[in-house]
């Protein structure tokens, strides 16, 4: 791109030419990809090469490149171009996701560069969450390794469609075709087993530049595209996103005055046209799209990926977090999700503790079951474990305190992914993928509050405090015409009579009390639990803290 312009004289003809060039350049598409490899596979060198060869490096960056020293047998140290934070550089490793940019005449590229060391799952999942394509690096001398399988598994998990197997360092195996073919056959066998679809294998040398931006003279036997040619032309557009039903999470309600009420959001999938019938979820209300408002004028229609503001023909109740969707795509409101979690925090998952869950534009309180299975990223085997630790991947059931319109991740990467947030530290502790939405299961507690009874946990330290508070709450609910039942140690008597007085017994009492409360709730009775429970045991339902008073406003939602 840069070279094409270098010789133009600054005359009028040239001006027309540059304008034509700009027009064309504005029509470039965007490709986001991730590079995965183990330490020393040559990832940094390859990215450096792409940046260098796309000629978007400037002289002072090149000067740094040289002054940063470390020349390698006369070659530029391309890897140093993509080095990062000073502290990390001292350790000689990169420890997070870095984003690099380069462009050709056809496309702009955003590269998520993630490190290859052991603590990589969290970073790779972060980088992969926004990638359309993955370049999986293999050292030609080593072939398919455990790490290769691990990277491929994570890419598949995160729903990346385009996969490139970059067989690097071909110069070190004498540009040997048989070696390349053997690696590809090996990977093919693994891919079949792992449920990985198509992939494109390219033999290359990041260091020498062969098959990176141009075809390699050293490997005439290879007839496919160079890596850059492939990246420029590959079609990874989520075809399905355009054909999929219209869905948009409402981020913000725009109310500049009494006459205008717009719903602002980014279209997750499908297309929307003025006059289309839509459903507002989770309520299920129906309306019609009146206008698609943008700063540049109203649109007749808009498709996936655009940020728009919709107005509706009717005055309906619609707020942040709601989904506006085509009626036939109406995602079932769910208060229980089956999900795969990638744990990202130092502190392990605590089953039944309340976390914030952010999905689409809604944030709800959620509690997690103990993991049903933990997946070994190397072998993909599923095993049992009591919890999930940093970089673990496992399957859990998630209970939400109110129903959200959920979509499976396989159907929609934008709406089927979620994050979990620690309520105290505010850290993002996990990434989640919705596997299955169970609409019915959740009704038990959250969905249909009119039918099901409420479950209320009385907090506080002293038995006397609890009893007094429980009595007040029971009185208030009865006055409101509810059926109420108080569960305390005395009432539970016979049901827990076989238990001792130690910590294990106390936890078991809580468990049994919870089960009784759930049965009562299903029968339409509000259950008040006045037992000695830890904060993380007080689920589902909500906790009332006697110290905070027990008015409605003071209630703290916990599930």
């Amino acid at each position, binding site marked *: 791109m840069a070279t094409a312009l270098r010789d133009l004289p600054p005359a009028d003809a040239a001006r027309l030419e540059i304008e034509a060039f700009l027009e064309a350049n504005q029509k470039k598409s965007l490709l986001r990809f991730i590079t995965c490899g183990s330490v020393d596979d040559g990832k940094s060198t390859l990215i450096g090469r792409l940046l260098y060869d796309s000629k978007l490096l400037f002289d002072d960056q090149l000067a740094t490149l040289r002054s940063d020293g470390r020349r390698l047998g006369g070659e530029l140290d391309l890897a140093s171009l993509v080095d990062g*934070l000073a502290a990390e550089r001292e350790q000689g490793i990169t420890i997070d996701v870095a984003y690099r940019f380069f462009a050709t005449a056809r496309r702009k590229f955003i590269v998520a560069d993630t490190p290859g060391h052991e603590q990589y799952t969290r970073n790779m999942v972060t980088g992969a969450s926004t990638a359309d394509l993955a370049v999986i690096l293999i050292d030609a001398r080593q072939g398919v390794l455990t790490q290769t399988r691990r990277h491929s598994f994570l890419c598949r998990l995160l729903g990346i469609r385009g996969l490139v197997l970059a067989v690097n360092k071909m110069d070190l195996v004498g540009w040997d075709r048989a070696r390349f073919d053997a690696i590809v056959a090996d990977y093919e066998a693994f891919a079949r087993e792992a449920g990985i679809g198509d992939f494109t294998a390219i033999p290359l040398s990041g260091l020498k530049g062969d098959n990176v931006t141009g075809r390699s003279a050293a490997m005439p036997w290879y007839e496919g595209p160079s890596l850059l040619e492939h990246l420029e032309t590959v079609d990874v557009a989520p075809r399905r996103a355009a054909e999929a039903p219209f869905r948009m999470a409402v981020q913000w309600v725009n109310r500049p005055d009494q006459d205008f009420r717009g719903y602002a959001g980014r279209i997750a999938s499908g297309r929307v046209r003025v006059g289309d019938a839509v459903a507002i979820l989770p309520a299920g209300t129906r309306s019609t799209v009146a206008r698609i408002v943008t700063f540049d004028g109203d649109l007749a229609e808009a498709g996936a990926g655009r940020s728009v503001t919709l107005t509706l023909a009717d005055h309906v109740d619609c707020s942040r977090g709601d989904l506006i969707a085509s009626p036939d795509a109406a995602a079932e409101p769910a208060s229980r999700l089956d999900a795969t979690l990638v744990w990202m925090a130092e502190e392990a998952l605590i089953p039944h503790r309340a976390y914030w869950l952010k999905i689409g534009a809604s944030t709800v309180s959620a509690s997690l079951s103990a993991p049903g299975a933990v997946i070994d990223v190397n072998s993909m085997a599923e095993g049992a474990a009591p919890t999930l630790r940093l970089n673990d991947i496992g399957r859990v059931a998630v209970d939400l305190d109110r129903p959200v319109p959920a979509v499976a991740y396989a159907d929609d990467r934008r709406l089927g992914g979620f994050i979990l947030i620690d309520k105290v530290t505010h850290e993002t502790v996990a990434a989640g993928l919705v596997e299955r939405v169970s609409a019915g299961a959740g009704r038990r507690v959250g969905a249909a509050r009119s039918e099901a009874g409420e479950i209320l946990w009385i907090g506080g330290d002293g038995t006397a405090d609890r009893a007094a508070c429980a009595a007040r709450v029971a009185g208030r609910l009865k006055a409101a015409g509810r059926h109420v039942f108080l569960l305390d140690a005395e009432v539970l008597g016979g049901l827990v009579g076989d238990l001792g007085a130690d910590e294990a017994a106390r936890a078991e009492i809580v468990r049994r009390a919870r089960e009784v409360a759930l049965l009562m709730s299903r029968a339409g009775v509000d259950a008040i639990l006045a037992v000695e429970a830890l904060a993380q045991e007080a689920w589902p339902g909500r906790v009332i803290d006697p110290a905070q008073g027990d008015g409605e406003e003071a209630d703290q939602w916990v599930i």
Partner: protein
Amino acid sequence: MNAPASFARDRLTHLDELEAESIEIMREVVAETERPVMLYSIGKDSAVMLHLARKAFFPAPPPFPLLHVDTTWKFRDMYALRDRVAAESGMALIVHRNPEAERLGINPFDHGALHTDMWKTEGLKQALDLHGFDAAFGGARRDEEKSRAKERIFSFRSASHRWDPKNQRPELWSLYNARKGPKETIRIFPLSNWTELDIWQYIYAEDISIVPLYLAAPRPTVERDGLILMVDDDRFPLRAGEVPVERSIRFRTLGCYPLTGAIESEAETLAEIIQEMLVATTSERQGRAIDRDGAASMERKKQEGYF
């Protein structure tokens, strides 16, 4: 961007995608924080950021004020554009000048690094504290500098405005976690994924107003320490023997005029600027005297709270 209906069926261009992403980020911030503010530095990145904000909240004006952390040493053309643009956008404009720097007469000629530190770094902290802003939009891009490549879109700062590289959150999909402790603040960079070229192309495509200093014109200059400086007003102390010379110059970045180096150029139109940029051999930050000291300097400044 506006596209006819038949066109809308086609795939989004890279600028469409970047625009939609930035708008999405801004709406999240408005929905999830209490008192957001947009840092407006009057440069081309700020111009694009402000334009995107107007798009994000249209037909309402952006629901936050603009904050200019002033040093009193910006180019005169910058002040003129600032006041015009703020009026057009319908947003409140807050101009903050560090009163202590003002009292001590801190200036770039006599005080070197202290100038940036007091007016910009301290000034910014003061302004955020004074108005109780808990979230500030900034126009930084990841392609500006190597250490920025890892900066998050949502960047958390402690109560004392320090940036802790070890305590930043992973950003997955477009699900931004904006939760924070009572005294913590967030810097949000909605232009993270834009490159300098994207910025220019967008300005060109959307016809966004920028400070005329980005375009070449004959201007009074002196050459000092390898930088071409513009003599923008009579506060510029000429050294013995220095006589301002008229040169055709333009600026690739704009800051305090005594600290901002110009390049000699004949590029009088946006198209020509983009052309020059594509064949450029000097990356953007080199025009800023502040970035000259070592590869890790930017990071250090960030940890200290420099934006």
